[in-house]
């Protein structure tokens, strides 16, 4: 029961190790679509520790899960800006903020919020990220300029297609959940 926060912490520490961080950051798409989600996942694992430690805080301030959902969305959108990704590579303070904000301000609140959310909010979140990812994919693929100074244009286009594929997967899920009645299996 208390093991998953330990695994989460180990994952976070492994991601912070300079060789691992440098490897993932050397390619644009692994920076955004591997390192950043893994940081969020480490937060998902660690959430139990905080929930057990401060049960009152989460049940009072995140009772219906919406504040946590908003916090998660804000942090994710922030890290989708071309500038923040660039500056994580050139400014140490931004890099440190990345390793703190993604696990603790995105992963932890998402874990706490998800079971509390009604299916309306869950679908709203997936629809929001589908639209966001389509827009970002469009931006990175068809932008006439190089958006990030630290990456080549070809990497920018690869990242754009990564966004489009992820959005496509989410659309498939939404269609599937529209036609399926999950309650039959629960």
């Amino acid at each position: 029961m208390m093991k998953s926060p330990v695994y989460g912490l180990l994952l976070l520490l492994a991601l912070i190790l300079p060789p691992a961080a440098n490897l993932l950051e050397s390619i644009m798409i692994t920076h955004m679509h591997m390192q950043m989600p893994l940081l969020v996942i480490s937060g998902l694992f660690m959430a139990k520790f905080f929930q057990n430690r401060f049960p009152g805080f989460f049940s009072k301030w995140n009772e219906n899960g919406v504040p946590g959902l908003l916090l998660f969305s804000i942090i994710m959108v922030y890290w989708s800006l071309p500038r923040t990704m660039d500056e994580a590579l050139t400014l140490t303070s931004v890099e440190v903020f990345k390793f703190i904000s993604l696990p603790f301000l995105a992963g932890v609140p998402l874990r706490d919020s998800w079971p509390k959310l009604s299916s309306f909010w869950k679908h709203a979140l997936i629809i929001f990220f589908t639209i966001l990812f389509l827009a970002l994919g469009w931006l990175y693929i068809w932008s006439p300029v190089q958006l990030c100074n630290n990456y080549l244009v070809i990497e920018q286009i690869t990242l754009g297609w990564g966004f489009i594929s992820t959005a496509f997967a989410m659309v498939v899920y939404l269609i599937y959940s529209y036609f399926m009645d999950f309650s039959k299996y629960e």
Partner: protein
Amino acid sequence: MFPKNRTILSSLLVLMFGAVLFYIGTDGFQAFTAESARVNQLMDEKPQFPDVTLEDNNGRTYSFSEFEGKYVFITFLYTSCGTVCPELEVNMSEVYKQIPEDYIGHDIQFLSISFDPERDDPKTLDTYRKAFGSDGETWRMARIPDKQELKSLLDRFGVIVIPDEYGNFAHNSAFYLVNPKGQLIEVMDYTLTEEAADRVTEILLSGREE
């Protein structure tokens, strides 16, 4: 006491945090890419052109103070570049043609600086300049042979150059204008030649009036 209101309150706090975060992260909703942040910062700082030694298309060497008392219109390039640089230089020649002729050479100097000094020797630069209608005098192409000096200039002007695996470089491009005292005063979009020419002419005109 009002559990419903409490989540509204915490949602509001989260939204405020988000607004502050985005405000700080984008310099007050001004700069969403590192490039626009760089340009804004350069225009604020007005960095001084370091005193580097240039070697131009005629093989002449001189320091940047050679151009003291003139505005200098600068681009950064390397001649083996097949993508942005030719476009950048074509656009530079557009600006060159649009500036009233009597300013050229007296009030303003055009200068293309190569950041690939190993391949871009004076002979290569001389061949390259002809392709873009540069006369080699009022518009010169030069390299900075000293690596340390080149790096100090690129750092100060925020030019980021990344070599890729095919012997090419990825780099950010812009038009730079340095004033007669050697300070960088304008960083302009290299795709908008008319705007750049208008802006430069305006600055030259006000420079003459002073």
